[in-house]
């Protein structure tokens, strides 16, 4: 998660990372098209989850139950692989505003 290095004193002694990218880079801001999943057409085969290069498609809720895939738009770059690979054509790419 995001950390703030205020000065040299906050730096590690040698160049190594301190945190993961979770919550840091809003790569979702990169997309010009957005994948919209139509639940009625989805059979929860999770092929979209399998091929997502981010990966940012969630297939379980926080209690661990399988859910209809939920796309995390904070990270989704809108590459469209999920839409292209979905066997049920349940994911539609919609141009952003």
């Amino acid at each position, binding site marked *: 998660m995001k950390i703030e290095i205020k000065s040299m004193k906050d730096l590690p002694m040698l160049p190594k990372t301190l945190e993961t990218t979770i919550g840091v880079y809003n*790569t979702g*801001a*990169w*997309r*010009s098209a957005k994948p919209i999943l139509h639940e009625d057409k989805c059979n929860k085969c999770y092929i979209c989850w399998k091929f997502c290069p981010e990966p940012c498609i969630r297939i379980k809720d926080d209690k661990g139950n399988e859910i209809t895939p939920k796309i995390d738009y904070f990270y989704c770059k*809108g590459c*469209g692989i999920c839409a292209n690979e979905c066997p049920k054509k349940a994911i539609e790419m919609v141009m*952003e505003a």
Partner: protein
Amino acid sequence: MIEIRFHGRGGQGAVIASNILADAAFREGMEVQAFPYFGVERRGAPVTAFTRIDTKPIRIRSEIKEPNIVVVLDESLLSAVNVTNGLKPNGLVLINTAKNPEDFKHLKAKIATVDAKSIAVNNKLGSKTAPIVNTAILGAFAKATGLVKLETVMECARDGTPVKKDENANAVKEAYEQTKM
């Protein structure tokens, strides 16, 4: 000296736009300099590019912090980036948008708008999901600022783009005509 900052996304041609503008000003007798924000470009990631135009040779070798003009190639950047950061008093902001200048009063600057995205799509520049708007926006730049002539920008758009030269020149002309101020 006039300092211009371009905001776009990787693949939208912001860097090429800054170069074509420099070429056009040069062909009209100006001294010029253009350079990208020296970061790691990635398709879709925010990109910044700069152009300086002057009557005498340009020697400054550092980023533009107080631009006279800001050009926004992708409207969605308005929420991601503070495009008017450092803009000089009554500087100009040119935005690629279907909306009108009045819709951007909150930016507290002179506003010009043009729907460069539809112009690019109509002229088959880039793909539908990733249109290349850099030449169109320069047509609007010529109209909004008068710094460079339409014909020069069309000529430079033709020379500065690897493919679809006529479509790019045409996009410049259409944007010039459709610029709202």
